[in-house]
C-alpha cells in the first residue's frame, strides 16, 4: 500500500518543505544558535548602571558548563519541581475529565443532548486571555474576594489561599485546567469518533461491557491523538509562564513556590544572559528527552497495533 512512484516526485517533497525550513532557519534557528553560544558565556549586566560605553556589561568570556551546573542546583533546580508539580496538578484532572466527557459525548446510548452547546461552552475559557483569567481569579481568591467570602462563610477559614504555597499552586492548576480542558475534550472526541463503530458492535456481541470496550478498544485506538495531547500539554506545561506570573508576581510569590523555569529565564535574562540562555537550552533538552521517550515508546508500536487491529476487525466483520 505504501508503494511509491518513481523518484521524480521526490523533489516536490523538498520543494514543499522549503517555506517551513527557510523561515525557521532565519527566524528561529539563527537566534537559537546565538542563545546556545551565549549559554557558555559568563556575562553579568549590572542593572543599576547605565552608560553609553556599555560598561555595565561584565563579560568574562567562555565559562564552560558552569552555567549549566548552576541550573541544576539550588534555586533554579527548585523551579523544575515547581513547574512539574503545577503541571501535574492541572493535567491529571484535565485528562481524566476530558476523557470522561469525550466518552460520554460519543456514547451513542447515553444520548447527551445539546452537545454542540456544551462543546462550544467548555472550549470558551481557552479564548480568554490568560491575563484576564488570572486577574479575575486573583480577585476571587484574595482577601475580600468572592470565593474567599464563600469559603469563609462555609468553613470559617479566613486564610488567603494565594498566600500559601500549595493553595497558590492549586489555583494555578485550576486555571490551567479551565483554559485547556475544553480543547482536550474536543480533540479526544475527534479521536474517539474516528474509531470504527463495528468494533464496538462486535465486542458487545461478545459480551463486553462499556468499561471493557473503553479500555480495550477505545483507548488503544485513540493513542495517536492521546499522544498529541500528552506531548503538547507537556511542552506547554514546561513552558508555563503567563498564569503564575499574572496570578502572583514575577518571583512566584509566595516564597518562590510558583516560580517556573520560564519565569526564571524572564527574571534573569537582563542581568545574567548566559545563565538565562543555559536554562533555555536545558528546557529544550529536557522536553526533547521526555517527548522523545513518550513518542518512541508508543507511536510506532501503536501504528503497528492499529493496523493489526483494524485488519482483525475487518476480517471479523465479514
Amino acid at each position, binding site marked *: 500500500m505504501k508503494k511509491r512512484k518513481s523518484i521524480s516526485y521526490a523533489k516536490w517533497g523538498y520543494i514543499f518543505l522549503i517555506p517551513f525550513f527557510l523561515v525557521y532557519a532565519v527566524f528561529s534557528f539563527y537566534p537559537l544558535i546565538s542563545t546556545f553560544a551565549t549559554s557558555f558565556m559568563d556575562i*553579568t549586566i*549590572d*542593572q*543599576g*548602571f*547605565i*552608560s*553609553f*560605553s*556599555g560598561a555595565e556589561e*561584565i563579560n568574562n568570556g567562555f565559562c564552560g558548563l558552569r552555567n549549566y551546573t548552576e541550573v541544576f542546583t539550588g*534555586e533554579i533546580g527548585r523551579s523544575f519541581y515547581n513547574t512539574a508539580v503545577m503541571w501535574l496538578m492541572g493535567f491529571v484532572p484535565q485528562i481524566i475529565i476530558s476523557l470522561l466527557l469525550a466518552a460520554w459525548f460519543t456514547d451513542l446510548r447515553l444520548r447527551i443532548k445539546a452537545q454542540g452547546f456544551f462543546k462550544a461552552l467548555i472550549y470558551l475559557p481557552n479564548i480568554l486571555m490568560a491575563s484576564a483569567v488570572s486577574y479575575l481569579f486573583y*480577585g476571587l481568591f*484574595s*482577601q*475580600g*474576594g468572592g470565593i474567599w467570602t464563600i469559603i469563609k462563610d462555609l468553613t470559617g477559614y479566613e486564610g488567603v489561599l494565594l*498566600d*500559601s504555597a500549595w493553595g497558590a499552586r492549586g489555583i494555578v492548576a485550576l486555571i490551567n485546567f479551565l483554559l485547556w480542558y475544553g480543547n482536550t475534550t474536543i480533540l479526544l472526541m475527534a479521536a474517539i469518533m474516528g474509531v470504527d463503530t463495528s468494533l464496538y458492535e462486535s465486542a458487545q456481541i461478545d459480551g463486553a461491557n462499556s468499561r471493557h470496550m473503553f479500555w480495550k478498544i477505545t483507548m488503544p485506538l485513540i493513542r495517536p491523538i492521546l499522544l498529541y495531547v500528552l506531548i503538547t500539554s507537556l511542552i506547554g506545561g514546561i513552558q508555563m509562564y503567563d498564569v503564575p*506570573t499574572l496570578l502572583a*508576581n*514575577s*518571583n512566584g*510569590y*509566595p*516564597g*518562590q513556590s510558583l516560580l517556573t523555569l520560564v519565569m*526564571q529565564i*524572564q*527574571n*534573569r535574562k*537582563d*542581568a*545574567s544572559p548566559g*545563565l538565562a540562555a543555559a536554562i533555555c537550552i536545558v528546557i529544550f533538552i529536557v522536553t526533547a528527552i521526555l517527548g522523545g521517550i513518550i513518542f518512541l515508546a508508543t507511536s510506532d508500536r501503536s501504528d503497528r497495533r492499529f493496523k493489526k487491529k483494524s485488519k482483525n476487525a475487518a476480517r471479523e466483520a465479514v
Partner: protein
Amino acid sequence: MKLKRILAGTAAAVIAVTAFSGCGKGSSSSGDSSTGRDPSGAETPEQGKVLNIYCWNTEFQERFEKFYVPNADKSVYDGVKINWIQTTNEGNLYQTKLDEALKNQQTAVADDKIDIFLVEMDYAAKYVNSDVAVPLADLGITSDDLKNQYEYTKQTFTNPDGKQVATTWQATPGLYMYRADIAEEVLGTSDPDKVQEQISDLDKFTEVAAKMKEKGYYMVSGYDDMYRLFSNNVSAPWVTGNKITIDDQIARWIELTKEYSDKGYNHATSLWDDQWSADMKKDANVFGYFFSTWGIAFSLRDATVDQKIKDDGSNAKEGNGLYGQWRACPGPVSYSWGGTGIVACQGTDNEALIKDIMLKLTCDTEIMKSMTADETVQDYTNNKEAIKLLIDEGYTNPFLGGQNHLALLTEAAEKLDMSNKLSAYDQGLNEKLQSNMKLYFNGQKTYEEALKLFYSDIKSLYPNLTH
C-alpha cells in the same frame, strides 16, 4: 476553501480599515501663544523636527498638553512632532526598552534619538549617576531658574559631580490621612493639630493604634503602608559599592510591622490590592492611610466615594461616601513618596525645546500654581513660591472638610533630606523586601526564611550585588 476565503476576506477588510484610520493623531497642537514667554537670547544650533519622549504612562503627557502647550514658546515648539513612546512599567519593561534605546542612541538617526525620558524616584539614581543625562546647566537652565524648587528634589537629581541632571514638576511630601469620624469616636477630637499631638512620634503612634484596636479599628490598612517612613530616613543607601546593607531603619520597619500584624493594628492587606482600596470606604474600619500628594487627590478620593465623581464635579461633596470626612496631619515621621523626573538625554537635537519645557513646567511659578489649583490635576508642584501664593490666597480643600493641607505639605517638604539615601537598585530591593517580608508578617515563614528568600530574589535580579 470557503474557510480560507472568509479568513482572507477578513484580513483584507482589516487592512483596508487600518489603512484608512492611519490618519495621523499627532498630539502636537498649536495652542494659544498669548501667555508665551520670550526665548532667552542664546544661540541654538539647528533643532530637530521630532521630539521623542520615553514614558510609562500618560501622566506627563496630560500635564504637557494641558499646561505646556498653551504656554509654549512658539519659536522652538512649532513644527516639532511630539512622539510619545510609552512602555508599561510592569516587569521592568520600561527600563528594558529605555536601556535598549540608550545603547543605540549614539548610532541612531537624529529623528530616532531619545530626547527626553522620565524616571521614577526609585530608579532615578541609576540614570542620574550615569553619563546619559544632560546637566541642566548645559541646557542653559541656571540655579536662579531653579530657586523655587524644593531642596530634596534637587538633591535627588544631582549627580556625583554635583550637577543637577533632571528636574520634576512634582513634589511629593507625605502626610497621614485619617478619618474624622473615627477620630471623634476614639480620640474625642478630629482637629488635626490635636490629633497630630497624639501621634507625633512612632511610640505615640503605636499607643494610639492600641486604642484604635480596642474600639475595633485598624490604624493602617496594609503591611507596606508605613514603609516609606523608614526607607526615607535611612542613614545610608541600600547599596554601597555592590554590597547590600539592611539599614537600621529598614530593620525597624520590619519589627514594627510584625508587631502591628501580630497585634492586629493593620488589616493585613497589600498596597494597591482590592481590599486595601476597599478599606478606604465608609463601611471599612481603617483609621488612616499614609499618602503623599498624588495619593490624596487620586487614590484616596476616588476610592472613598460611593458614587463615582462626575465630570462636572457635582457630586463631589459631603454625603458621597467619606468625601469631606478625611483630615490630614504630618504624622509621626516625615517622608516623601514617588515623583517623576524629566531627563534630557545626551545626543538630543532638541535642546532649546527641552529647555523651554523644563523651565515652563518645573520652574515657572504662574504655570505651576495653576497646576496645583486645577481641580482635576491637583499636583503639588515643585515650586515653593507657587504654593505660598496659593496658601496666601486662602486655599482650602473641600475634600478634606475645608482643611488647608498645602500648608502642612509645605512644612513637610522643607524638612525632607534625600541626600545619600538613594541607590540605583532601590526599586527591586524595596519591592522584593516587601513581598517577602509579607510572608513573615502573615506567619507563613520565619524571619530568617523570608530574609533568605529576599536575598535569593535579589540574586536573580541583581547578580552583581553581594550581602
